[in-house]
């Protein structure tokens, strides 16, 4: 894991409760997290907008399979 990726993942987990509640890592399959739902998708979109000024669509977030995919989307 590189530092930038770590930092993005850490910041994302701080804002998205579905990622923080479980011992989720970059390779965790999002669909296996109990709180990975439509609310979690909204929290990711909010994080992207507030932290990076980026507008993500729900489809983009839902298409992510793992935490690493989410970080890649934010990068």
């Amino acid at each position, binding site marked *: 894991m590189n530092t930038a990726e770590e930092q993005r993942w850490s910041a994302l987990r701080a804002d998205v*409760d579905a990622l923080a509640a479980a011992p989720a890592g970059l390779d965790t399959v999002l669909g296996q997290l*109990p*709180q990975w*739902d*439509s*609310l979690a*998708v*909204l929290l990711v*979109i*909010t994080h992207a*907008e*507030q932290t990076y000024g980026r*507008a*993500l*669509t*729900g*489809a983009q*977030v*839902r298409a992510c399979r793992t935490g690493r995919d989410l970080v890649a989307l934010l990068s």
Partner: protein
Amino acid sequence: MQTTLAAVRLAGLAVTTGPLVRDFVAEGLAAGQDAAALERVARTVGLRRRLVAAPGQTALDLCADAAARLLAATPEAAGRLDAVIFVTQTPDHAQPNNANLLHGRLRLARTVAAYDVSLGCSGWVHGLQQAALLCAHGGARAVLLCAGDTLSRATNPRDRATDPLFGDAGAATLVVRDDTAGPWCFVLGADGSRARVIEVPAGGARAPRGPGPWVERADAEGNVRHPGDLHMDGAEVFNFTLREVPAAIAEVMALAGWTEPDVDALVMHQANRFVLSSVGRKCGFPAAKTPMDLVERFGNQSSASIPCALAESLGAELRSRPTRIVACGFGVGLSWGAVAFTAGPLTILPTVPLPLSP
């Protein structure tokens, strides 16, 4: 579009809600859902208690109650009524429209014009612009604006993403011609390219209901609905709101020549706490100036939510003194409307539930 209208004044407001209480957490627990998961959604989205219409009660009934109470409390303005505008997505019938039915129910004079505006959560601001336009330039002395929906009935009970959101209410707003008042500034907008982000796909002329029952289907998250149910793509609605609402608020404030310290309250459509806190933060308004607890008491009331927030959160100020308001509605269409205006003192009646029929 931008509109600035002088010589208009808000004379009164009244809101009637549905009488039945729905409790998000209690109902989820009764259905066997996880307590922590329910509390998480309740806390983040603001889903607690909502008031919905009883069987047989419609948006027309809710608005008729609010309108009758308001007109009785403001006899001078009521005597000068020249038009009725009804904003709804849940009319009693495809034809005739709700405004004409209300006209008949209130026994208004034949000289009083009546028409509907087909909008949802952005509709009160659009209706207010229409009412103000009629008073400022249309020869109207007073206009009754009714706005309400019964969206709690438009959703599928097995669609957990949409069904718990809505409360039912009808609002009556009285706008009068007053040469000493105004100006009111409006910004209205639409994005029809994304019209299907909030939709009831079937049941209209394009896809009429057939002779058989609706066919229900589950989406990827297990939410069940049929083509006659209201569906919202929550993530896309949220994106739309984050993009358009702060821009519309900034535009209308610039049109009015106001900055944040000039404004007493930013009153947005009470969609849910998550949306309101995100948009309020982006607009640079302190939370104390941005009412956002209405959805936890009433649910998302569609076009009645802004007048309900005005009455419930700013009633004391509006009854007693001039108050600078920026309001913004946003929703189906996709559409949005923002208004910057000074209101008060004005008549605000208590928000009450529509009694159950005996």
